[in-house]
């Protein structure tokens, strides 16, 4: 076998088969995938199915705390989990740029397999395409996922959100966004910082089983906590008030954000979710989250109030400012 991906690896011929067998099936294999038929078949029990899809184009493809493979599994698993579903099956499509070292592809696939195992999901179908050098960027991955809606999960809806409800997050914000930014630009300011990339279905299942009053959940990925809460505010019709002092933040993220003129509230997260919880169940919910490794720093960071679909931040000194949806990508300020 050559040591880089060639165009021929994507032409459906002998090299394609070798690639599928020696990398994808070898690492991600399960009875359904091993069939290598045109479609995976599985039985469905009664109830509702949830389907989600996401594409991953992160640069760099390896970063502290994860890689594009782990991200591709977590992203789709988390979208299903915050919708109240128990994720079960994934598909994975790779668009590979000619010349990608095979050892990189192996590492990415191994990482996908490990994350899938941790999340309790199986990759049951896949596809590989190879594009000419310069027509892609190393590797892009699309995953789609199917999950079964749990009883507790089926009642989640933004229409249940009411003034007085609390906003809970399972830990510190902006870790993923700042990690990627600092890796991309080669900063030395944020040593020790790593992406929070993690599958959230385990902690979410424990939360839904452990306490009533969970009304709605979302994962604040691109656009960060501020953008996701703006979406919640606009769907529900209520205001959201955040308390700056309560928001968990790592000192590396705070420091690098201040230097670059970025706001952690707008930085991406890949292992965090926001839950809107009935007031009386908020404290017990935080207690449950804190017992899980992915929720040690869980906190109530805000509340829903009467209003007109706006998001506000109460600053420690007592001022209030509005948090708008991000217009375009976050760009560092020079002054």
């Amino acid at each position: 076998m050559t040591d880089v991906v060639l165009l021929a690896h994507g032409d459906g011929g002998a090299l394609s088969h070798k690639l599928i067998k020696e990398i994808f099936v070898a690492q991600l294999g399960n009875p359904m995938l091993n069939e290598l038929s045109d479609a995976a078949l599985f039985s469905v029990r009664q109830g509702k199915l949830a389907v989600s899809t996401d594409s991953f184009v992160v640069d760099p493809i390896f970063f502290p705390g994860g890689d594009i493979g782990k991200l591709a599994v977590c992203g789709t698993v988390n979208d299903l989990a915050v919708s109240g579903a128990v994720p079960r099956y994934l598909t994975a499509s790779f668009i590979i740029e000619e010349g990608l070292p095979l050892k990189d592809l192996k590492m990415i696939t191994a990482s996908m397999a490990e994350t899938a195992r941790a999340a309790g999901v199986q990759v049951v179908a896949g596809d590989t395409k190879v594009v000419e050098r310069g027509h892609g960027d190393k590797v892009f991955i699309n995953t789609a996922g199917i999950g079964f809606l749990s009883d507790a999960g089926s009642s989640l809806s933004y229409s249940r959100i009411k003034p007085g409800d609390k906003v809970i997050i399972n830990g510190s914000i902006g870790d993923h966004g700042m990690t990627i930014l600092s890796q991309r630009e080669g900063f030395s300011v944020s040593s020790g910082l790593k992406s929070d990339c993690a599958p959230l279905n385990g902690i979410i299942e424990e939360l839904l089983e452990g306490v009533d009053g969970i009304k709605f959940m979302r994962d604040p990925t691109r656009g960060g906590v501020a953008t996701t809460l703006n979406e919640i505010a606009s769907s529900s019709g209520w205001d959201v008030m955040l308390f700056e002092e309560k928001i968990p933040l790592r000192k590396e993220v705070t420091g690098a954000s201040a230097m670059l003129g970025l706001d952690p509230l707008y930085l991406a997260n890949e292992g965090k979710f926001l839950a809107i919880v009935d007031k009386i169940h908020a404290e017990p919910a935080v207690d449950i989250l804190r017992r899980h490794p992915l929720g040690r720093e869980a906190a109530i960071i805000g509340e829903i109030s009467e209003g007109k679909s706006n998001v506000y931040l109460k600053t420690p000194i007592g001022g209030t400012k509005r948090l708008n949806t991000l217009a375009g990508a976050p760009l560092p300020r020079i002054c």
Partner: protein
Amino acid sequence: MIIQPNTDKLALAKKLLECVRQKARRVSGRLGRPIRFMEVCGTHTAAISRLGLRDALQEVMILASGPGCPVCVTDYQDIDTAVAVCRTVDNVVVATFGDMIKVPGSYSSLEKEKAGRGNVKIFYAPYLAVEYARNNPDKEVVFLAVGFETTMPTVALALDMAERDKVNNFSILPLGKLVPPAIKALLQDPELNVDGLILPGHVSAVIGRKSQDFIASYFHMPAVVTGFEAADILIGINSLLKQLETGAARVENRYRRVVAEEGNPEARQITDKYFAPVSAKWRGLGSIPDSGLVLRERYGYFDAGTRFSLEGQEPIIPRGCLCGDLLKGKALPADCRLFGKTCTPLNPVGPCMVSSEGACAAWFNYGMTS
């Protein structure tokens, strides 16, 4: 580690806030009108907004945003030139600070060029663009040298590096600007409606406190140099209130841990080695004498404009932008006929809309129309 708020600092800031509120109520009562202070620089604008101070003080005073940052005031024509570099120079990489790419010229922006075929690369420091040029000898790297007195020494150091290491494929578009001439231009307007100035902390670290004495001695305007933490800003405002109460006008320094009387002569020296003052256009404010920086003749070869003989093109500027009047407190966003129509946060015309902290952007985002 999760950050715990510094409770001592916070308690101090809260105490100061109460103190400032009381004093402001008294002074404004005596004046019989609302107090209006202006923070000159964009970093103060951002800090005041981030800390929630504008809101916490709004009952007792108006904190108006000044000319802002060097990015927001970059003129149409300068962006047009950068776009022209992007389109016409062979193998070019336009190197820029991140927040420049959104600023619109009269027919495009670097963001749009980047999305097309333009090769635009974001750098965090000018010397990184020199390093990139050295590692990519087949490329022509043109750095957009925007900045006030604080940033320009870093551009000068990058030029020093390019000069020393003979990096011949590195040049700049000199777009540096100087703050005191802009302050002078604002203060010269007899209709200016401002009771005191919060002077830029970083710029002052370079130019020093003393060089800004003209604000008080010539224009009799209370002013204060201060830092960017809540307590810094409140102490600065307190100093302005004291001056206003007693009818005094001084340029006080409440940022002594960073700003010296004479500033930083070394930083000025290196800038001065490469650049000379020249009349420059500020977006929304127009042409201001001696407020820009041009390369000195003996370093003219670093000027991308001459190196690639770029043709100047007359910019098409939407007429009617009131940013100049707005900055002076003579108009409100709603008075501007471009506001919310031709001029929006995604397609900004003047600096007050370009900067997300600018008055127009804030008005637009809050859905205010009158």
